[in-house]
Structures are given as C-alpha cells and as structure tokens.
C-alpha cells in the first residue's frame, strides 16, 4: 500500500478467536490495515463480519476467555499495544484512542451525570483539577453542539435525546484529544435526520481537530459521504480496501459489487426487482481454508474452495482478496495469481 505520512495506527495480521462449545470461531482472520493522520477510514460489513471485534481486539476490550487475540501487531505511538500491560493499555484507551459505541443509552452510565462522566477521563488521564475539568467539559459539550452546556453538565443521560446522547459520547471520546477516534456504528441507532446532524458534526470536528477516525458501519451511504478510504469486511477478513471513490466506482470484490447492487436507489428509475445476494453469511467455526464468500459468490470456481485468497494490489491504492478478476470477468491466470 503506498502511503504518504507514517500511519498513526498500523495493524498487521490480527487474528482473534473465540472459544465456543461448537469449536473455535475465527472472528478476525489476518486483518491488516493502517490509519494515517487526519484521515477517515470507513469499515463496512454485515453483522458477524468481524468489524467490531477487530476494533475491540486492538484495545483489549474483549473478555478473555472466550476471546483470544492469537497473533498480530498493533503499532500505535511507536509501540505494539498488544504487548503492553493492562495498566498501560488503560492509558491508551480514552487518552490516545477514543471510542464511540453504537448505542449511546447503554454506553453511558445512567446513574452518573453527564458532567461526571465527561470529567472522569480528564481527571484520570490528564490529572486536571475538578474546576479545570468542568471548564474543559463545558468546552467539549459546546464543541459537539450541545446548547446551554454548563447547565446540562448536571443532567443525567436519560434527560438527553438519542442524538444529544451520541454527541455526549463523542465529547467523552474527544475529551483527552486522542490521536485516533474509533466510532462503532455511531449513527445506526439514530434517525436519518439526526444521523445527518451527527455526520455534519464529524465533518466539522475533523476540520477543527484533525484526528484520524475509524468509522464502522453497515451503511455504504454513510461511508460514501464521509470516508477517505474504505475497507470492506466479510467473514472476519478484509475483502476489499481502497480510496472511497475508487472502490465505489470500480468495486472489484464480488461481495462489494453485489452489495452496491442490492441497495435500492433514491434517484433514477426504480428497479423492477432488487438484486439479491443469495444465501447466508458464513459460519466461522471452521478455519477458513476457502474463501468465506464462496458459497454466495456468482463467480466462484474450484480454486476458491481450496485456497483462501490473499489481498492483491490492483492499482490506485486499491486491493482485493479474490481469485476472480473483475476487469476480465474471469478467474485469475496462474501467472497473475502468483505475481
């Protein structure tokens, strides 16, 4: 992957396995990606594609057992954060990496005021005094567009609407000026008009603060609007990755192509019938020696069952994990495959 600046976050060959009664679930299988300063990386996938588990693995947020981060490196600020101790990792979370979760109601503590929850990271991580923390908390709430911020510090989460709660979550995640913000389906629980507000806010914050963002979603429309690069995940693996315009204009993986086709359009002629991706997402209990999308793929051939495709570069900073060549609409030749 060609890149300009040194990445703020560099993930290589991350593997996460869950031990279950029916065997090991390979939830994240050799995922690699990087995140450059100031950019927004969109991660798309369906439930069970491994997008959330990948991000939680990075920060040691998964309960172990059953989860086990089996291998990989996660370089952040010059060190591998998979290898550091629990105490140091706690300093990474919240301070260097902010996290916004999907459901703002369950991720805020209902028995503490919003002010308390905002001041907590400021006092713990930055050692601010109570008064300093409160002033900073007011600034943060104003930053995310909550009116009458000073008064609202004393309110409890239930006194905020869904969109406002998500703004509070973003304010908490931004509290310590993190280098990286990971947002896990932050607008999925919100209505479209509120989602539009949050997306505007994020665009604005990026301009003001310039942090790097990983935005997880299942909505390709959201990605199209805000991301610089996009990474499509399927069955615990990266199926396709590249600059957002490039991937949407020239989707190379049959899954991405199908996904874009199944979505009904808001403009132009209505399709008589929606294109569908037949079948179900894969069970990840067997170690994937085959391509995970094979059973649902219109272009699958014998090699897809024998060999899990590796990611290959197809130019324009775009890579795809597939044995099928979308430019010729034919299987890759042996020479191409080994290149």
């Amino acid at each position, binding site marked *: 992957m060609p890149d300009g600046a040194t990445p703020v976050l560099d993930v290589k060959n991350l593997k996460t396995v869950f031990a279950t009664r029916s065997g090991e679930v390979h939830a994240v299988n050799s995922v690699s990606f990087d995140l450059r300063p100031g950019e927004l990386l969109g991660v798309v996938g*369906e*439930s069970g594609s491994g997008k959330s588990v990948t991000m939680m693995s990075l920060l040691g947020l998964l309960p172990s057992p059953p989860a086990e981060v089996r291998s990989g490196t996660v370089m952040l600020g010059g060190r591998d954060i998979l290898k550091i101790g629990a105490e140091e990792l706690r300093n990474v979370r919240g301070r260097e990496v902010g996290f916004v979760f999907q459901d703002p109601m369950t991720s805020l503590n209902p028995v503490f005021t919003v002010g308390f929850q905002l001041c907590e990271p400021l006092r713990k991580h930055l050692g601010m005094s109570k008064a300093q923390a409160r002033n900073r908390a007011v600034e943060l709430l104003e930053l995310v567009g909550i009116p009458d911020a000073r008064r609202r510090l004393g309110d409890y989460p239930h006194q905020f*609407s869904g*969109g*406002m709660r998500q703004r509070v979550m973003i304010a908490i995640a931004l509290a310590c000026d993190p280098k990286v913000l990971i947002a896990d389906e932050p607008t999925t629980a919100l*209505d*479209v*008009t*509120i*989602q*539009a*507000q949050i*997306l*505007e806010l994020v665009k604005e914050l990026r301009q003001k603060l310039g942090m790097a963002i990983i935005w997880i979603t*299942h*909505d*390709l*429309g*959201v*990605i*199209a*609007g805000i991301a610089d690069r996009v990474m499509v995940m399927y069955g615990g693996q990266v199926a396709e990755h590249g600059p*957002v*315009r490039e991937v*949407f204009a020239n989707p190379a993986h049959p899954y991405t192509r*199908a*996904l*874009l086709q*199944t*979505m*009904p*359009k*808001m*403009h132009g002629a*209505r*399709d008589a*019938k*929606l*294109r*569908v*991706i*037949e079948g*179900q*997402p894969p069970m990840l209990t067997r170690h994937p020696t085959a391509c995970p999308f094979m059973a*649902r793929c219109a272009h699958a051939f014998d090699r897809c069952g024998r060999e899990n495709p590796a990611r290959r570069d197809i130019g324009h900073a775009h890579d795809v994990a597939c044995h099928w060549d979308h430019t010729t609409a034919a299987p890759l030749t042996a020479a191409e495959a080994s290149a």
Partner: protein
Amino acid sequence: MTETPMTDRRKLVEVRDLKMHFPILGGILRRQVGAVKAVDGISFDIFEGETLGVVGESGCGKSTAGRAVLRLYEATAGSIRIDGEDIATLPAEVLRKKRPAMQMVFQDPQASLNPRMTVAGIIGEPLDEHTNWDRKKKLARIYELMDAVGLNRDFANRYPHAFSGGQRQRIGIARALALNPRFIVCDEPIAALDVSIQAQVVNLLEELQDQFGLTYMFISHDLSMVRHIADRVAVMYLGKIVELAPVSRLYDHPLHPYTEALLSAVPEPDPSLERRKDRIVLKGDVPSPANPPKGCNFCTRCPKVMDICREQEPETVEAVPGHFVACHLISHPQTAGRTGGTEAEHNQMKTQQGEVA
C-alpha cells in the same frame, strides 16, 4: 401525473381521522393528566393490490398507526373501514371472524416468534384458531406456506433459534399468509436484517403480492427501500401525515419541507453524489407527542417556517390530484401560489383559506 387516476381503483382500506392517544396518568389517584398523541387524526386510503409506504422517524406514530389500523389497539377516535366494514366499532367476536383477512408482519422476528414452538406450530397456529381442519390438511397447508416463502420443509420441526434473522422473518411472513389474507401490515419487516438479507425479504414480499394479490401497508424508516416497494407513500411527523403522494411524485417533487429534509438526509452509496449534495440538516429534535407545539407540528424545526405556522395548524390539501400535503406554504396563498386541484375526496381534507394575513 403519469399514474392512472386513483379513483378508478377499489379502496380496500379507508382510514378517516384516526386518533390514538395514550393516557398519561399522574398523582396519587392515577388520574389522567395528559395524553401522548401518538397518532393524531390521520386519514388515508389503501387501494386493492397496492403498497402504501408509511415513512417517518422513530416516534412519529407510524407503527402505532399500523397497529391501530388492524385494531390491535382500541383507537381513540376515527373510523377504519376494511373492505367496506368499519372495524373500529365491531364487537370482539365479529372482529375475530374478520381477522383472517388482515394480518401483520412484525419488525423483530426474534421477539415475535414463540421460542418454545416449532416452525410448523408457529405457522399452523392461525389455522388452529380459525379453521377446523384435520392434522393432515393443516400440515399440507404448512408445507405449502413454507414452500411459498422459501423455507425448507425438512425444518418444519425445528425451533426459531435454529434459524437466521432472514429465515425467521420468512417464518413470520408464512404465518401471516396462513389464512389467505387480503391486507397485510408490514411493520418494519426488514429493519432488523442485514443489508444483504433485506433484498431477499423485500423480493419475497413482492413476489407474494403478485401471486396472491395482497395489499400492503409497508411501514419503514428506510426511504430508499420504500421508494422501491411502495406505490404511494405517506410521510408522518409527530402523529400526523404531512404528505401523501404517489411514490415518484413524492421522491421527485416533495412539497412539504419535512419530506424535503428527510429525503435529503438519506446517505447515498455514491461518493461523487454524496459530496455534491446540498443537504438540508434539520436543527434540534422531534418535540414530544405529549406536548406538541402550537400550530404546525413541524414549526419548531422547519427551515421555511412563517408566522402563521406557529399559530394555525395547516389543513391537508390536494395540491395536485393524488398528492396531499399539510403545509401553509402550499395552502396559504400569500406565500406560495396555490396550485388548486380538485376538492379532496376526504371530507375533512377541505381546503381552507387562511384568514391570517
């Protein structure tokens, strides 16, 4: 208008001034101190064989409307005529006999299927209730239904947990079809499903509609999916229908500022289009339906709000034949040229000239 005149077609469902208010109780004596006006006076028709999409954000009353139409709630006021009969006033025993003709598909296929019943038991339950068929005949019907919705017959004796979300929704659809209904309310049937599974279920609903001549009320917050499946669309905001029009008309020429904002808020999977778009971002949140604002319900967030909007509730007018809208911009001659149009077929939808200057 390219669509055929609606009046030529038979109305299967006629809803007039439907209100569904939930009481708020307070004080020691638990007296009613207010009401959540979840649905506050909506009127619409659904023609035989068509799909009426109902869109709006959470809390706008679209699901409540769907449930009230099937009389799963006792409506506070209004009439609901299904196939010519006002079901809002029918006694329970008579209503029960009518139930087979009107069914519902629920949002959450996990919560709406009994985990202790097998698939055959779930799909067959309406048959147990409403027919006196013998086991063999019932089983034959169950298999027939499973075939119709694309479920493998071999799984008839499995329990819901063994199925994926999309398959569970197929079970729910098979159950709704069991008694040969004519009208099905689909309450967010795809909201809980993954993107790649949504298209499968929507295609199934469309195939079944063609096959059995079904009429749908399709409730959803997914505007692009509604554009695909619906023939006409009603947009709800805070318990009221603000706009109702044929689908192409609504998406290409929305008249109500809320519809405009709602449509522009939908993110589209096309980066070049997405970034060029002039998005209307609404300020603030939806007011509480327990305490709606004076005048037009949308006046607190409307980018085109006028003085009259804070005073007077807009009447629903038929701006263009078949295109109904409740907005002062349309009905108030000072600010917008009235497009006129025939007098509404709904008697309470009469155009009233605003007397406020």
